[in-house]
């Protein structure tokens, strides 16, 4: 589903964020992406979304080489990927519910199904009461949950979460974990970049570890640190 073929990403002149990364995540797989701060996790996410282009190598999603997607087809590509951004990226002029609905609106879904689906998903992340709040009226964790809800709502085949629990308390993190698992079980490919040691260690899923832009570990049932 997602394949990195010898991908190198250099920002500016000399910041090597990824170096010859080879990676394959199959359809329906669940993988963690771990690594120290600045090791390149968000860069992997950005490349999958075609938010940025690799300096060398190629990224494939669903069999398509991303560099061959023409500009006008990019939205189509992105609609197949639900993404929880590390900095949330909520629209400040839209309420929580509107932010979530926007991800459905871009795909041209009917108003009726949007109206049915959005409250459901907000309920799921525990924000039913905050549906009409603007992002700046929400706490950090609440904003993060809106971002999570937006990524889920249109049930995309791929779900990527960049540090989805950074602003969540342990209990909420656990329920998010269970949610991710459920979503994965219905066939969604899930990739989670995280620092949350407890989450990784408890789930025992595939762990891909980055260190200064290189893959240093790739274990099928891994832990946050090597050999726990």
């Amino acid at each position, binding site marked *: 589903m997602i394949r990195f073929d010898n991908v190198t990403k250099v920002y500016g002149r000399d910041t090597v964020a990824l170096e010859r990364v080879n990676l394959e995540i199959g359809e329906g797989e669940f993988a963690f992406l771990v690594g120290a701060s600045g090791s390149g996790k968000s860069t992997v996410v950005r490349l999958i979304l075609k*938010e940025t282009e690799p300096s060398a190598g190629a990224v494939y999603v669903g069999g398509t080489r991303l560099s061959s997607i023409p500009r006008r087809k990019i939205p189509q590509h992105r609609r197949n990927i639900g993404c929880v951004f590390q900095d949330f990226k909520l629209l400040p002029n839209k309420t929580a519910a509107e932010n979530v609905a926007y991800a459905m609106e871009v795909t041209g879904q009917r108003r009726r199904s949007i109206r049915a689906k959005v409250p459901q998903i907000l309920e799921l992340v525990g924000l039913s009461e905050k549906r009409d709040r603007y992002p700046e009226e929400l706490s950090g964790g609440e904003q993060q949950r809106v971002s999570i809800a937006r990524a889920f709502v249109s049930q995309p085949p791929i779900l990527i979460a960049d540090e989805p629990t950074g602003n969540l308390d342990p209990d909420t993190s656990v329920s998010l974990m269970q949610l991710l698992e459920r979503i994965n079980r219905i066939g969604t490919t899930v990739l989670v970049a995280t620092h949350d040691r407890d989450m990784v260690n408890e789930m025992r899923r595939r762990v891909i570890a980055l260190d200064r832009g290189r893959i240093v570990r790739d274990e099928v049932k891994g832990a946050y640190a090597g050999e726990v």
Partner: protein
Amino acid sequence: MKFNPRFFVREALKNVRLNLLMSITAVTTTFICILVLGAAILISAHVSSLISSVRQDVTISAFFPQDASQKKMDSVRNSVENYPQVGSVKFVSKQQAYENFKKRFKDNPQVYQDLGSDFLPASLEIKLKNPKDAGVVARKLESEGFAPKDLSYPQQTINRLNRVTDYIVWGLRGATALFLAASVLLISNTIRLSIFARRKEIEVMKLVGASDSFVRTPFVIEGLVQGLVGAVIAAIAVIWANSLFVEWAHNALPFFPISGSDVSILYVLAVLVGLGAMIGVLGSYLSVRRFLRV
């Protein structure tokens, strides 16, 4: 993807409301620019109509010989009246000429007090449609039998008048064009800034899968609404000021032929509002475009 106009209009109106400060700024800017532009257009129109009415006042006087018969003079008059360049022809008899002369020199009657009432020749006063034709008409009159010395037309005055009024008209057109360019730039500057302030939003929309047109349409409608509102208010202000001016001019400058019908109000309204809407739409379109490349 279905195109859903109601969705986009709703989005646009919501944005106008939420970014009220920016919307007001954009509307104010449009208002001011269109106001100045509208004033320039109106002033141009008034001055042009004033100038053409002044131009129509230019006449050629063709003096008949002292001994010309009334029949001969009537036939010449009829023939002159049919010249295509001629607007109107007035016959001035010897007696009328003397009266006019008296009137002209009424401040110093010494000039005429010793003269008989028929020392002045009869003449035709020929109003031209366009003062530029004075030379042509003069030559035609000569072939009609008038001696060049018997034709009086202020050629130099006409030339000057033509040149000056040409320059004034061109100057006004130039100023209007300048204002138009300035308005376009100023309004689109404002729109660009207000969209620049929201470039992150555009980025986010693109990242969650919105197509260019999906992102753009609400912005363009927003620009349209702001441009329309600003332009409509400005157009109303311009038209209102114009009617005040026309009324005032009637009283204060009765000898100036300024009238409300010089200017087609509907035309001005349409041009200004159309312009405001166009700049709003185009400005938004182009400004959004540069932030869509995500």
